[in-house]
């Protein structure tokens, strides 16, 4: 048995099982996130929310999924067929493959690679392609406008996100995600780097095209932006991709700033809960904030969005990066 597990075939099977163990809970969480979002927003707006399908409306996600599957996939006659299908598939795939490096507990990452954070950043920066390709292949003005907006927006906010990540890396001295979490044993990074934590969170909102930065789909002017021509399962893939991306960004925030799987303090009542539970709780906190922001803020105007990205976040994070480097160097806190 040992010999079999060490053989290439055995490794393949183990990796496949690990991947399933990661993705199945993720997809269930995505399904229930749509329900949670509707319930939370309903509560904030003094409505009831979904309550018909199943007890407390708990079967609503499955009803939605079944509806999506049953509908007809319509491909517009002017569309570029191959790219039209590729767009949503790419969005969904990219939202899934990033989870390969997320450490849920010490040693619980499918691939604990040296450059984990760079891998995450690379994958999240590719997310824009699904949207651009979809918008262009639809051969529709609304979709195209949405795609262009989203391309400019995501590239702008990636710059400040990159600088925030570099700031965290300065404090850790490693690109490995497990090392990043372990470096937060004394204090979670959101306390010393609080402004960067805020910038990172707002950038993740822009990066996932969530309100108040959802100009790519702005339903009041672009109908649904890049998704306007999509139907049934292709539409559902965009939807799943968007929510999985939100989870991914929450996991990134948790890993970089909220101490990953670490309990708030290493004392008795807190370390009763195992690491993965803490990790999930922190992700839930971030996801709740995503919904909270959606229910609270009106949509940004496009020029204000660009101004915020380039004229506020970029200079601020650059200055904070240099400051962090100075403080670390002068105080002798630079990790070896």
């Amino acid at each position, binding site marked *: 048995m040992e010999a079999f597990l060490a053989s290439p075939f055995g490794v393949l099977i183990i990796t496949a099982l690990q991947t399933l163990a990661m993705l199945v809970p993720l997809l269930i969480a995505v399904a229930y996130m749509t329900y949670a979002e509707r319930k939370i927003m309903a509560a904030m707006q003094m409505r009831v929310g979904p309550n018909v399908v199943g007890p407390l409306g708990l079967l609503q996600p499955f009803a939605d999924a079944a509806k999506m599957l049953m509908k007809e996939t319509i491909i517009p006659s002017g569309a570029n067929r191959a790219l039209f299908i590729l767009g949503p598939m790419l969005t969904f795939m990219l939202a899934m493959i990033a989870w390969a490096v997320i450490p849920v507990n010490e040693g619980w990452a499918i691939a604990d690679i040296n450059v984990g954070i760079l891998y995450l950043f*690379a994958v999240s*920066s*590719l997310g824009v392609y699904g949207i651009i390709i979809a918008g262009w292949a639809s051969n529709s003005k609304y979709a195209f406008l949405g795609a262009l907006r989203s*391309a*400019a927006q*995501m*590239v702008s906010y990636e710059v400040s996100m990159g600088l925030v990540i570099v700031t965290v890396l300065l404090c850790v001295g490693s690109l490995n995600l497990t090392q990043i979490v372990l470096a937060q044993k004394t204090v979670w990074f959101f306390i010393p780097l609080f402004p960067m934590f805020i910038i990172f969170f707002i950038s993740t909102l822009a990066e996932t095209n969530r309100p108040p930065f959802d100009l790519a789909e702005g339903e009041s002017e672009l109908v649904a932006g890049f998704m306007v021509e999509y139907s049934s399962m292709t539409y559902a893939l965009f939807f799943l991709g968007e929510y999985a991306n939100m989870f991914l960004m929450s996991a990134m925030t948790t890993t970089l700033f909220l101490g990953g799987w670490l309990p708030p303090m290493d004392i008795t009542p807190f370390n009763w809960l195992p690491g993965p539970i803490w990790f999930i709780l922190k992700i839930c906190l971030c996801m709740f904030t995503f919904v909270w922001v959606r229910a609270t803020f009106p949509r940004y105007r496009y*020029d204000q969005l660009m101004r915020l990205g380039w004229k506020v976040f970029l200079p601020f994070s650059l200055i904070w990066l240099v400051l962090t480097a100075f403080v670390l160097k002068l105080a002798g806190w630079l990790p070896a």
Partner: protein
Amino acid sequence: MIAALAFYVFAAILIASAVMVVTSRNPVHSVLFLILAFFNASALFLMAGAEFLAMILVIVYVGAVAVLFLFIVMMLDIDFTQLRQGFQRYAPVGGVIGAILFLELLFVYGSWQFAPDAATLRMNVVPVEPGVSNTEALGRLVYTDYVFLFQVAGLILLVAMIGAIVLTLRDKSVDSKRQDIATQVARAEAVVLTKVPAGAGLATMGITRRKLPEAPKPKAVAHDDPGHSGGGHH
């Protein structure tokens, strides 16, 4: 065995997509093939053990440069028939230039001489101590050993950037109104903070719904059409 197979697969896809970049009719497809080429190059970096370079290639070239490239190319309004019209006229010139370049490359290759210790130098470019990741080794090289060259490269890029900005900068203050967010937010009446009890709505702030004008009553029309106003149908 698997590594060699993967190398050939990645290399073959890389070359094939590079060819498609040049030959495909649609410029958007060209850019997408360019992206595929970048990906395969990054995979080759990974196989060579240069994981940092592989990730940076994806982040910088695929995640930023190619996005802007695609952005521009998608907005171009290109007439393909017009593009192909001059093909026969320009083909001889292009062919001659290509042939000259090819011949020059052949000459260069023919007279190329390797340093006598090139093979050993190639084996270990940098004396890397064991246990140092290639990210760290690269960082030491760029930021410690060759920091002045690095700074000079940065300055050259800065000059190029300033040039691009100067070329595109226009003074728009004459004919456009700018939004000054600070003054806008600082207006006395701009923001009002109140604590509204749940369910009370805006009425507690003295904001009431404007009374809608009463809908005009339907006019009574005197029907002289006997078919409708008269009693009974026919």
